[in-house]
């Protein structure tokens, strides 16, 4: 993991002090709500249904056991309220698709204290919200994947540093998300980002970036278009500076729904490309413009070495156990280093919303990381935790311990490993609840044999068109919509995040008018049954859905409507 320097620590503490000053002025009535809002947002503080929501940055998803223990302490001591249903009293966190962690119940008065607690473990909420450059995300298998060409983590860290409190780009037209990956497989959904970066090597072996721009979800789903096939790594910060400057000057500010860079890229077309190239050329021609230096890169990259690992031994001989085999098949992943494995701790289990962890579970996961994975964890884009450094001979012991902690559901990549936003239970923006829908589907598909038979499938649920649950890219997408003050759900099929399994990135296709909440599990089941009936041998859901188109799925789902009429 990246190791914080004195500079980093001093910087985070300065930010916490600055925030405390702003909060105190606000609480004294010297800083009105409207003017405090953008300031607190840029430190991760939203105000949601019940209390402020704090989004803690987990840069490119890397988390230490020590940090996770501190997050558990914050959950236990600060994320609390005295009244309400048990599920409304806090004490838990929620991992997001952007590899961050959210708390929902911390009173605003305590927010500066919590920032200090985060700073104690080199954490913060800087730029996890607001119209600025957000947390940089990457592949959860970065640095350990066998198919990796270049480890993206040092570059992600350099981007984190460059973008942190960048004074020119603090008030962009809209939020700005950058994802980076460096493997054959894109596990970071880069095509869906404002800037999607792919690390590549050219024929001479030099490292650079393929740069795509203008992807995004929301009301207008757009796949990013390639802007440059190869930007040398030394120039990537300058190139991104040129892109963001053009966006800052020309992005629309008259309509929040048309303010993302995707709209500018689409509206301007070649003119946008020309503007970026002109700005980049002007920067490059200026001798004062700094390029990244090898020494700087080496200093940062030194933090991303392989941690001291227990020596891998040969696998002990165990009596075969089908449950263990199944877990290995779904939750254990190949590793770049022989004798090691990456293991996903599933946060998709009965009784808890996708991605949620209680304080006790955070401590449980931290203990697993300490015992089995050199004290390191990753937050995955799919809202699970991953242990990156597990010796293969420890798998059986890890499986037993993970089962104890409720982390061993063998469902990674299966239907119940769904992505879901917090939805209307917690989020003030949502049109509809996500959590009860996720729970109803998980209950309907609780049979493991059936789940494994259905096979690989991405089910994504968003409670509103802001698309935090990435419904557009789900093989099955569920979108909460509001009609006359009640909750309805629109279903899509054949969306793709751009992974090899999912195919070229694309938004899903709608299958008919919205469904009532209690129709959704039946409709999903009808869609799944259609797939099972129609699939050819070995064909995955997304391939069948793409081959057949939405119509057969629509017919099947229409047939189970009760409250709603089919159109």
């Amino acid at each position, binding site marked *: 993991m990246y190791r914080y320097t004195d500079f980093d620590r001093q910087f985070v503490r300065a930010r916490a002090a600055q925030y405390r000053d702003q909060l105190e002025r606000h609480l004294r009535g010297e800083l009105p709500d409207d003017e405090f809002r953008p300031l607190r947002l840029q430190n991760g503080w939203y105000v949601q249904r019940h209390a402020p929501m704090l989004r803690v940055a987990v840069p490119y998803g890397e988390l230490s056991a020590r940090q996770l223990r501190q997050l558990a302490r914050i959950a236990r001591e600060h994320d609390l309220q005295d009244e309400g249903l048990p599920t409304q009293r806090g004490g838990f966190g929620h991992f997001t698709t952007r590899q961050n962690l959210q708390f929902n119940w911390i009173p605003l008065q305590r927010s500066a204290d919590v920032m200090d607690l985060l700073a104690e473990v080199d954490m913060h909420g800087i730029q996890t919200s607001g119209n600025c450059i957000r947390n940089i995300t990457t592949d959860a298998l970065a640095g350990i994947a066998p198919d990796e060409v270049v480890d993206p983590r040092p570059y992600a860290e350099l981007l984190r540093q460059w973008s942190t409190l960048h004074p020119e780009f603090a008030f962009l037209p809209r939020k700005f998300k950058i994802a980076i990956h460096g493997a054959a497989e894109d596990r970071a959904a880069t095509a869906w980002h404002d800037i999607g970066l792919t690390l590549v090597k050219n024929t001479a072996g030099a490292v650079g970036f393929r740069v795509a721009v203008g992807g995004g979800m929301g009301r207008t789903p757009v796949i990013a278009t390639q802007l440059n096939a190869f930007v040398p790594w030394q120039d990537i910060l300058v190139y991104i500076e040129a892109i963001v400057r053009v966006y800052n000057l020309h992005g629309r500010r008259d309509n929040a729904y048309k303010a993302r860079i995707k709209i500018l890229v689409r509206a301007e077309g070649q003119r946008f490309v020309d503007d970026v190239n002109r700005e980049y050329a002007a920067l490059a021609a200026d001798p004062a413009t700094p390029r990244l230096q090898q020494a*700087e890169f080496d200093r940062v990259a030194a933090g991303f070495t392989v941690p001291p690992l227990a020596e891998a031994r040969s696998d002990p001989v165990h009596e075969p156990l089908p449950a263990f085999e199944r877990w290995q098949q779904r939750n254990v992943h190949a590793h770049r280093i022989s004798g090691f494995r990456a293991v996903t701790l599933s946060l998709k289990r009965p009784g808890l919303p996708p991605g949620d962890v209680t304080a006790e579970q955070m401590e449980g996961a931290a203990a697993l990381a300490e015992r089995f994975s050199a004290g390191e964890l990753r937050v995955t884009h799919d809202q699970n935790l991953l242990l990156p450094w597990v010796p293969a001979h420890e798998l059986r012991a890890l499986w037993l311990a993970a089962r104890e902690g409720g982390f061993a559901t063998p469902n990674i990549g299966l239907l119940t490993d769904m992505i879901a936003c917090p939805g209307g239970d917690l989020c003030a923006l949502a049109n509809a609840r996500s959590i009860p829908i996720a729970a109803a589907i998980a209950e309907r598909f609780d049979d493991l044999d059936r789940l494994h038979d259905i096979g690989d499938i991405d089910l994504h649920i968003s409670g509103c068109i802001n698309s935090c649950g990435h419904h557009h890219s789900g093989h099955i997408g569920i979108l909460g919509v509001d009609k006359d003050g009640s909750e309805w759900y629109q279903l899509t099929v054949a969306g793709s995040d751009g992974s090899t399994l999912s195919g070229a990135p694309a938004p899903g296709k709608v299958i008919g008018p919205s469904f009532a909440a209690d129709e959704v599990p039946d409709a999903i089941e009808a869609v799944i049954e259609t797939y099972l009936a129609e699939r050819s041998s070995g064909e995955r859901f997304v391939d069948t859905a793409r081959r057949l188109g939405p119509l057969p799925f629509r017919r099947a789902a229409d047939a189970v409507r009760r409250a709603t009429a089919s159109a």
Partner: protein
Amino acid sequence: MQFIPPEQDALAGALAIANDTDVLALADEIRGHTAVALHFPKWTDGRAYSQAVLLRARLRFAGEIRATGEVLADMLPLLRRCGFDAVQLRADQQQAHAERALGFFSTHYQSVPPERAATGATR
């Protein structure tokens, strides 16, 4: 950072530039002025930061760059780094808050072009 009192005309003696103007297209006109006034119609509209950066780094404008419009105390650190050297705060803002806002950070992760031109920063 120079503070222009609220009762004073912040545009006096300056070329006023709207925040949707391409400053690079005004290169000739700007050369004849010793001061430029950039505008924040809303304090969360960040275009003028990039305009100031281009004035300093691309056009090498060495005169005064003023921030006018809805300028709030908490903007000061950003304004200073992007090349502004004079501000007229919105009338209800306290100069003491603005000065305090300048004091939280002594160093930064990145350089913006006006800082590079001034210091030859390494990054």
